[in-house]
């Protein structure tokens, strides 16, 4: 079988923040009634996580559950576990009105880490990224320059960002430019 390749193919840049391709990652769109006990049980069984609250992200070991909209989650798992995870969801939700589909190759997944990470994103997105307003565990879908993107912050201060694969290179170049050394604004101390 052919090896999966991401649009960014492992690209990495170090400036005031480190921008790196997170590599092939399993992503599953799950639509359904997020308040139902069936969906809750299915997500628990598939990725071992609860249903995240409104605009929240839950991360586990190699998995994540992200709140995309009132009826949609994005589930993450290792790339080679996607088929297995979808099968678990399908079995657990049989008879329910739901959709679980593999979108692993539809999106680019990046990591933004380092001291300037908040500032780099704040330059590109109309979001208040001050530590008081944007805390670990929050998930935000927004606009990054000219494209839609979504990101969350983990406990270690690293941002994880997803955007469409077709604009992956554009997104990387945007972040790279915003993270160039000498571009510090220092607005977040």
């Amino acid at each position: 079988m052919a090896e999966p390749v991401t649009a960014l193919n492992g690209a990495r840049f170090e400036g005031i923040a480190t921008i790196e391709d997170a590599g092939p990652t399993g992503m599953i769109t799950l639509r359904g009634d997020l308040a139902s006990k069936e969906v809750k049980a299915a997500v628990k069984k598939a990725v071992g996580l609860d249903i995240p609250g409104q605009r929240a992200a839950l991360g586990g070991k190699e998995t994540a559950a992200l709140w995309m909209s009132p009826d949609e989650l994005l589930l993450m798992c290792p790339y080679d576990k996607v088929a297995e995870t979808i099968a678990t969801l399908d079995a657990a939700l049989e008879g329910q009105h739901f959709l679980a589909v593999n979108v692993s190759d539809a999106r680019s997944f990046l990591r933004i880490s380092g001291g300037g990470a908040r500032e780099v994103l704040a330059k590109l997105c109309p979001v208040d990224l001050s530590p008081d307003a944007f805390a670990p565990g929050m998930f935000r879908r927004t606009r990054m320059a000219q494209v839609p993107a979504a990101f969350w912050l983990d406990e270690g201060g690293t941002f994880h960002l997803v955007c469409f694969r077709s604009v992956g290179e554009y997104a990387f170049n945007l972040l790279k430019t915003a993270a160039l050394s000498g571009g510090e604004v220092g607005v977040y101390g």
Partner: protein
Amino acid sequence: MLILTCPCCGVTAEETEFHQGGEAHLTRHGPGASEEEFHTYLFAKENPKGVHFERWRHNNGCGKWFHAARDTVTLEVYGTYSAQTLEPPQVIRDAITAKRPGWRWREFA
């Protein structure tokens, strides 16, 4: 610049995260509608100076449609509310009345 709050995901963001979707509360008459009704649906739009009701979509966010009541002169936003309604809720009407007593928009007041 408008600051809108999406009633579906609760985000308050500036207008570039959203997309405007035309006038709110239009009635599309069913099969067998008269030419006059279809003409009204397509072309007879409000162009007010003041209170206005619009449809918006949170296209860079949760992707859902909603309604917004705003003022075309001052650009203040009186409120946003669910897309699943045929008329502005009372709380929105009251918010407008508090600032623009005697307002009228189509059949709403």
